[in-house]
């Protein structure tokens, strides 16, 4: 897995053509709400449990 592949998958998932350029100022004010963090943790736990079966 390379950084480019990861970027490609992320762009595809978000239906973007290129990575957005975000200001540091915007980010400094950004707080991750509890429900978003909870959703992330749930997915993280599920991804450790579930395995997708390839070839």
């Amino acid at each position, binding site marked *: *897995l390379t*950084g480019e592949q*990861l*970027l490609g*998958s*992320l762009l595809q*998932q*978000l239906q973007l053509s290129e*990575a*957005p*350029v*975000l*200001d*540091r100022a*915007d*980010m400094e004010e*950004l707080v*991750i*709400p509890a429900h*978003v*963090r909870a*959703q*992330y943790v749930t*997915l*993280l736990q599920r*991804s*450790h449990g*579930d*395995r*997708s*079966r*390839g*070839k």
Partner: protein
Amino acid sequence: RFSQSFREVAGRFLASEASTHLLVFGMEQRLPPNSELVQAVLRLFQEPVPKATLHRHGRLSPRSARARVTVEWLRVRDDGSNRTSLIDSRLVSVHESGWKVFDVTEAVNFWQQLSRPRQPLLLQVSVQREHPGPLASGAHKLVRFASQGAPAGLGEPQLELHTLDLGDYGAQGDCDPEAPVTEGTRCCRQEMYIDLQGMKWADNWVLEPPGFLAYECVGTCQQPPEALAFKWPFLGPRQCIASETASLPMIVSIKEGGRTRPQVVSLPNMRVQKCSCASDGALVPRGLQP
């Protein structure tokens, strides 16, 4: 019927007059533990048609002297209902006799997915007309396969299971972190850390995680003996590949209407869970449907 674009098409039900046989194979302990099924072959002995019988059926042209033999896997569900899955189908000629071979690998793959205790492997063999319809030949009535209890066991149905011992031909789990990977390293899963903080495109965009263990499959796989490669030329060399993967959740910042907000996304197949040796061209087992 109600559209001008389509003409009404009438259908007719044509009875296939199939003769059906159920083959039952007790499979428990037939497949060695820690082995990989390469191919399962069903061998049925087609009995010769007596000349007098052929004569009674009149002259059958080579095309009309064929019947379709279909093998289906039969599963009895917990509620007692049956479900069949098409496994293999081929045409046989009534003028021939001898062993007919069917690839039933998929049926055994399905059977392996059943919860224990597993029912026996049930294969339903049906012999049908090659083409349905009133003008079709009756060749299918002449096709007979030897059944269990044939004189001196000659021509009894056989199931051949070809397996590879994964102790020799499989992967070895996780790599030894102390040992460097060389050409001789047996297929294993190696730690590989993806550092997102070190990637410029991820700056201010990817909020979580800062990095993750992706793992990669490294090393080589032992190749089957040449005799097997000759037997199954459709199988490519065995390669060390990611056989099980997991998704990677992320929190990214999204800019919408001048505002930035965090969003959760999940990227599929980003982390390797298991590495295996697999032959290119090998059957990818289908998941068992309910």
